[in-house]
């Protein structure tokens, strides 16, 4: 290329480009290496976020891990540095499943697993189903979409208090329907104490959680190219086939992240059981967060509570790592 040609093409290019407001002119500047031009700017921009994450998350977490190796009872709250080191004693107490503390922790862990399985499964199922049913335009679609997002928008305590009212034994809606109107139970049941409380907790958690799944899947659906549906329609695919062959497979990457996020949120959930049952959750709905909170703040034994929290974190890390490993391998396999 000769010099004249270059100039011509450049003027032509910058003319075309100005309408889009692009940096055609930038090419005339001598190119400065990125590293020099930016200097420390990106770090400066990140500084507030990093400082806050350190202060609120990372440093407390490290302190929490340190605390789990100390005998931190109420006598040492004012001066927790003076609490004696106990090595792994707190962990031994937490995982000694023959002693009451360990047994209760194990029970709570199982309850949380069962709760999470049903709460996440149903929330996901409802979310995906609703999003697919609202994919196509029809009268009232926008209205329904708004309605479905109401549980997500409601403050968790306002929603859960309302459910607590509905689950009251004597003046609640649930018993009125099940006992008075349908006659399904011999006498009004207790929903917020005793064995039934796990059902109440799952219902409330699904009610509160599924709109998030709906929101994410709805966003994911908008990224499926419409040509896929058009092409398959030409080939004679019906709507059920399209859902099975196009929609669901296209949602796979979205679902993989969604299920993980739902799992982590549900497994750690504190707000729902705390508002539904108050400080003492019934044994059948004794979720792990509530259990640790009680072990710490009710029995004033922070060392053991911290050890339990660390064990919980390790469990979540392992599950997340395994999950990511399996799903990423699955994704690679699908691409190949």
């Amino acid at each position, binding site marked *: 290329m000769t010099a004249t040609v270059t100039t011509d093409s450049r003027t032509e290019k910058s003319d075309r480009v100005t309408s889009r407001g692009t940096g055609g002119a930038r090419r005339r500047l001598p190119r400065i290496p990125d590293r020099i031009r930016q200097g420390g700017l990106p770090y400066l921009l990140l500084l507030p976020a990093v400082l806050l994450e350190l202060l609120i998350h990372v440093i407390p977490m490290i302190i*929490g891990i340190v605390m789990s190796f100390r005998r931190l009872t109420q006598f040492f709250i004012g001066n927790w540095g003076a609490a004696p080191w106990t090595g792994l004693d707190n962990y031994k107490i937490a995982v000694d499943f023959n002693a009451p503390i360990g047994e209760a922790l194990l029970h709570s862990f199982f309850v949380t697993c069962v709760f999470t399985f049903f709460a996440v499964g149903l929330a996901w199922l409802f979310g995906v189903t609703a999003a697919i049913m609202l994919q196509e335009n029809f009268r009232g679609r926008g209205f329904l979409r708004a309605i479905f997002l109401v549980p997500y*928008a409601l403050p968790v305590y306002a929603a859960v208090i309302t459910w607590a009212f509905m689950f009251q034994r004597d003046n609640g809606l649930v018993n009125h329907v099940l006992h008075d109107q349908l006659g399904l139970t011999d006498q009004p049941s207790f929903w917020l104490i005793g064995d039934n409380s796990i059902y109440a907790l799952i219902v409330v958690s699904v009610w509160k959680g599924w709109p998030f799944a709906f929101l994410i899947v709805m966003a994911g659906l908008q990224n499926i190219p419409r040509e896929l549906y058009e092409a398959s329609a030409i080939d004679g695919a019906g709507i059920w086939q399209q859902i099975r062959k196009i929609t669901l497979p296209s949602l796979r990457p979205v679902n993989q992240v969604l299920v993980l996020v739902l799992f982590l949120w549900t497994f750690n959930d504190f707000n729902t059981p705390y508002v539904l049952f108050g400080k003492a959750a019934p044994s059948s709905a004794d979720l792990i967060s509530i259990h640790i909170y009680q072990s710490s703040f009710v029995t004033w034994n922070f060392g053991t509570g*911290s050890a339990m929290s660390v064990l919980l974190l390790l469990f979540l890390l392992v599950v997340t790592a395994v999950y990511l490993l399996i799903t990423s391998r699955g994704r690679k396999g699908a691409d190949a």
Partner: protein
Amino acid sequence: MPSHAQPAALSRAAGSRSRSRSPMAAPQSFLWTRRIILAFLTAFVLLPVYVMISSSLKPLQDVSGKFHWIPSGLTVKPYLDIWDTVPLARYFVNSLLVAGSATVLSVIIAVFSAYAVSRYKFRGKRVFTVTVLSTQMFPGILFLLPLFLIFVNIGNSTGIALYGSRGGLILTYLTFSLPFSIWMLIGYFDSIPRDLDEAALVDGCGPLGALFRVVVPAAVPGIVAVAVYAFMTAWGEVLFASVMTNDTTRTLAVGLQGYATQNDVYWNQVMAASLVVSVPIVGGFLLLQRYLVAGLTAGAVK
């Protein structure tokens, strides 16, 4: 996009019916399934909403005895009484101050961070994004007590009162929404053509000028989505509010709960109070939900 050109007639037909899945009419089996599922979900979602609204208008004897679908009479008395039974107005102001400040700060900090990650190459970028996101999976219970101790100790040694103050709660809440906000905004900023801010740089804007004059205006839907998310996170949090506040700084999350666990619960008042604290946030959310979906589409879901 040449692939569009081929079935041009078809895409025109599909385009005239917006968002239509296919030009073919859906079969009856699908329409009926859809009706049944949507009716079930609507009933499930609206049931507590109906209970909340109808009970808040019932006289006390209606909510203390057996539940009735139809109120025996309507009264607005619960709405007048709630302000005296508990200091609801004070809780409301506290929640508004805490959630509002946490939202503003969280959005500003998230915009800076997302801009750095989206537009610059630097060492430690991946470590930053992974670390920030992984804080989302920490069980809150793990750092609740240490954080409580840190706040108390900062107060003792420097006189900055974080424990029991709104400031401490604001700092805590803004970090709760920060990871997801940064993540979503990185995706959103990535979708804005780089040429736009490079042109601004050439025109003499500094990097911050480019951020505020070009990138931020183009990312308004994403930023609104992030703000909605941050506000809702702060408005609804219970665990830290129950430990980190005292009588004067108590937020709605704790105040309302204390209301409902008294020995004699005035359920009509509790429902009225729940409705009053929900209306501003649900209303705001429903007005802005379009942005949230748009923001998620561009940002998170890829």
